[in-house]
């Protein structure tokens, strides 16, 4: 649910990074946090276990600048990827204006990708959203690893909607901002079309 505040002249939007466990959702946020001008970002909050697995969510507020005199602010969230945290995942999706699906390119994680995408669709539906209609971007992460699937195959399996998709190595920042830009753009355009 985007929030337009005419009094403070602000547009606020919520973007959720979704994907299977250990695919690099938190790494995306950490890279964005590390590379963003301090004035444009808030604190990165990670509710994680002692082993740095996301327990509830990561949260990063970002200000991008002005559009027609309105400050645009994005709240980036990640979900916990591990299968058994489904209840938490569902909660975080509530009110999302756009979703980034971070896929793990490794061959052995393909099934986890498909399961997570399916889970995303189901959880969105429970909130009354349709994955086929909302702003959505896919990132094929971990392209630097040796045992990865060709992008074409990943695309065929995951991107049937033909949304913007990006190859990435989130730990090195490759593809991270491209992905963020693409989803932010779709979310803002959606705002316009309402």
């Amino acid at each position, binding site marked *: 649910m985007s929030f337009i505040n005419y009094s403070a002249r602000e547009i606020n939007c919520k973007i959720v990074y979704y994907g299977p466990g250990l695919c690099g959702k938190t790494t995306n946020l950490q890279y964005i946090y590390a590379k963003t001008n301090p004035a444009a970002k808030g604190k990165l909050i990670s509710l994680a276990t002692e082993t740095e697995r996301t327990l509830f969510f990561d949260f990063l507020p970002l200000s*991008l600048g002005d559009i027609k005199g309105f400050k645009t602010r994005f709240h980036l969230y990640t979900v916990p990827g591990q299968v058994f945290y489904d209840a938490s995942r569902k909660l975080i999706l509530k009110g999302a204006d756009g979703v980034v699906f971070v896929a793990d390119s490794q061959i052995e994680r393909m099934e986890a990708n498909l399961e997570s995408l399916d889970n995303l669709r189901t959880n969105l539906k429970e909130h009354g959203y349709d994955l086929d209609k909302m702003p959505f971007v896919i990132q094929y992460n971990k392209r630097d690893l040796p045992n990865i699937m060709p992008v074409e195959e990943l695309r065929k399996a995951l991107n049937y909607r033909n949304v913007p998709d990006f190859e990435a190595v989130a730990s090195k920042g490759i593809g991270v901002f491209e992905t963020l830009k693409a989803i932010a753009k779709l979310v803002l355009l959606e705002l316009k079309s309402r």
Partner: protein
Amino acid sequence: MFNPQLVLHEKEYEAIKSVCDRLYKESNSKIVFIVDKNGQLIAVSGDVSRMDTTSLASLTAGNVAATGGLAKLLGEKEFSVLFHEGENDSVHISLIGTRMILVVIFDKRTNQGLVRLKVKKSTEELNRIFDAIFAKTEKEKASQGAIEITESDIDKLFGDF
């Protein structure tokens, strides 16, 4: 449309803010703020100069969401009040209607009973204000488009990256 939008105009914001200000004074608390259930900060009263209000808002919403999930598991509709007691500061969280959260942070200068009482009074008022806002947003949906965003506006946003 997949997602209901919240649009807040100056006059409505002033109305919300004045209820917060009054609650802040009457309950003798440190900070009063209103967050929507998605973690967007709507209004705040009190000295927040050393407070990270954005994080506060997001964590409050996460807290309420998690507790709401817990309530459903137990067969409850929701837990309408949450209370966290600390050594110095305590936090009183309550729901306003179905979409908003009222948070009061207070210390030993006041007590939970007074906060609760004043929150109750303010909640009724805030309920009325938000009901009117949501009804209006719903009505205006068709005629919206007040902010005309172009692709080049959006591209400019990313100039720094």
